[in-house]
């Protein structure tokens, strides 16, 4: 290329670049600053595509139900709540960018983070910097709120916390183990942070409550692994009395289907914390007998009219059944709504955080009809934790035993000290 042509070509390049920047300007239309009037915009980063699309669908379903109800009643002092939902596809850097865009570009003054755990950490960093109110509704990883290094004053969590589940579950398992002589245990959980910490904590507390329990085999299939044959055969070889699994969703369905082929469930008792969810328990075709599931969401747990009403409303408006994510989001929405009522519609992060810290809400999903947002670490307590026997048809769970919260809280304190999280 001679110098004249290349000069022209590169001028073209510069123009192209400027044009692209201008086009970017169309996307970044200036956010109209909303004073304390007009709609209250809430940004919801979540996962709407790919294998975990059900997470986003059930989270948004519950949020929509809550906010539609509020808007029908007149909103907050006449101001309606508007949700802006964005798909981050589960990639943490996209979640961070989506959150920033929701705040900067779309004028969202509040964030309800319906992301899965790894992206939730990325969103937490954005909130740390920007300081708006954020409620994490799906991430169960304890360290998000337990680790003081990760603490952000305007970030809260309404999802269940891994350590609570583990203590409650371990207690239940130990009782069953003592009754049935289940000494040798095997585990089968997905090999990522949630699977590892959930399973490790469960077995630790099972052993704490029943000293006879030993773990003879651990299997760690990869998340979304389609084929569990080698895991099932390993479990067969282990000849354990009982098994624990933190598999969830489609993975759990596939595992059960494949394990049934080897008649694995006839040989051992199984504790599968995530089986009880609609979408799993009603999808398994050959239902194993004698399987225990942790409390996820079930219309009969608790067997109150409020719970049944919420379930019916959800099925009617969202045309699908609620999941564990649904109730966690509903609780998040309720905390937010009550805080907004307290601040009279002021969406300032600090003010809302003050209103939420230590608040208690009346809810069908609470242990005794209520859930509290613990002030010391911005996470919820007194939600329903427990285990029951899984069934293949309605009501899909029976003999549900709710775990008492006093021992859970006590052991949680000790766990935090051990982890070095004590403030």
């Amino acid at each position, binding site marked *: 290329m001679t*110098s004249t042509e290349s000069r022209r070509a*590169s001028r073209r390049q510069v123009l192209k670049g400027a044009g692209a920047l201008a086009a970017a300007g169309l996307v970044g239309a200036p956010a109209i600053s909303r004073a304390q009037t007009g709609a209250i915009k809430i940004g919801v980063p979540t996962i709407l595509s790919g294998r975990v699309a059900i997470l986003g669908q059930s989270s948004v379903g519950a949020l929509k139900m809550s906010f539609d109800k509020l808007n029908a009643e007149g909103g907050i002092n006449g101001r309606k709540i508007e949700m802006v939902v964005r798909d981050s596809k589960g990639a943490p850097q996209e979640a961070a960018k989506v959150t920033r865009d929701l705040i900067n570009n779309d004028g969202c003054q509040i964030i309800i983070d319906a992301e899965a755990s790894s992206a939730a950490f990325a969103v937490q*960093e954005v909130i740390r910097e920007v300081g708006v109110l954020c409620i994490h509704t799906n991430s169960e990883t304890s360290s998000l709120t337990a680790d003081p290094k990760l603490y952000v004053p305007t970030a809260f969590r309404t999802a269940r916390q891994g350590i609570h589940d583990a203590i409650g579950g371990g207690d239940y398992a130990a009782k069953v183990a003592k009754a049935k002589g289940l000494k040798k245990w095997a585990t089968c959980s997905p090999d990522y942070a949630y699977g590892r910490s959930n399973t490790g904590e469960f077995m630790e507390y099972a052993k704490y409550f029943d000293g006879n329990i030993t773990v003879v085999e651990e299997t760690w299939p990869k998340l979304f692994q389609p084929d569990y044959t080698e895991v099932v055969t390993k479990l067969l070889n282990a000849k354990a009395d009982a098994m624990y699994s933190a598999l969830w969703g489609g993975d759990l369905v596939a595992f059960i289907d494949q394990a049934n082929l080897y008649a694995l469930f006839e040989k051992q008792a199984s504790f599968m914390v995530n089986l009880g969810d609609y979408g799993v328990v009603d999808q398994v075709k050959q239902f194993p007998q004698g399987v225990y599931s942790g409390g996820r969401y079930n219309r009969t747990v608790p067997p109150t009219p409020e719970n049944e009403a919420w379930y019916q409303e959800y099925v009617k408006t969202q045309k699908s059944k609620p999941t564990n994510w649904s109730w966690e989001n509903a609780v998040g929405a309720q905390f937010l709504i009550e805080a907004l009522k307290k601040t009279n519609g002021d969406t300032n992060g600090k003010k809302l955080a003050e209103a939420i810290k230590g608040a208690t809400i009346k809810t069908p999903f609470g242990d005794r009809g209520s859930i509290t947002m613990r002030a010391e670490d911005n996470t919820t307590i007194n939600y329903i934790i427990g285990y029951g026997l899984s069934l293949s048809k309605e009501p899909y769970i029976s003999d549900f035993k709710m775990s008492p919260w006093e021992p859970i809280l006590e052991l949680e304190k000790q766990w935090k000290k051990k982890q070095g999280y004590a403030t």
Partner: protein
Amino acid sequence: MTSRWRDLGLAGLGLVLLLLVPVFGAPPAIRDFIMFGMAYGLLAMSLNLLIGYTGLVSFGHAMFFAAGAYAFGLAMQSGKFSIPGAFVLAIGFTALMALIIGAICVRLNEIYFAFLTLAFQMLFYNIILGWVSFTGGDQGLMGGIPRPKFLGIDLADRTQLYVFCSVAFVACIAVLRQIVTSPFGYTLRMIRDNQERAAFLGINVTMVKLACFVMSACVAAVGGILLTLFVSGAYPNFGFWTTSGEAIFMILLGGSNVFLGPLVGTVILRLLNDITVTYTSHTELVLGIVILVLVLGLRKGPLDLLAERWENRRQAKAQAVRDAADKDAQTGRDA
């Protein structure tokens, strides 16, 4: 010589344009878009050094993106390095990694090179995932990246961060431009066009390819560092094969034969991504249809197409000038 000054001048102009963005009060959303674009743009531009200029199709380039990100993030989280120190460390680590991996890979050709780079990338990815105590596993580097001040610059301030990223970005683009317009760059093109002929001319093809591999890895690492600073963390999917795939799409969407093509492709892909995410929940469907329309309709990157049409028009004009001159000469003779 003049072209070098012209290029540097254009780079300076570009930098000034970038820096004017916050000055003219553009909303933070535009700055975020540009910063994202700069990080991924460096990934795509560096990959094009391999694909467009040397003919080496790599399916695993994102491993260097991730290497830079994690090395920088870990260095800063350790608290023992300043930002410039961590920067240099991350690039150095990536260069070393590229040297070792490249030495094994560049001996292969075409699709085998592609698959081998993919294999190494997935090995690296599995190491990141598996070494939970060091890298945080699937949760990535949590807790944010500390940003101590250096030389009076405070990267915790978003505007200063933007300036820093812009400078780093333009510097890398200028470096790439210098490589591409230098004799080394023309050697790369020669290897792309006819490897055997280059070898017969006495060029050590393997060494040249290896050098190119390492250089492009370093630029990709800078992209990774920029992304880490932006999201305050490093995550395993930085090094997953889908990220390499995205880089390839950016190159294809923009054009691999024009220098800034991949950058245009990055902007196009990010715009497409952001617009579809804003207006629909069916992001995959829309993205897929748009890609099909672009690829089947245009068959080449838009910049390539424009460059071709430009070239054709120029040749047509030159031909017209020649025809006119011939005619004059003829009439002159006839007269």
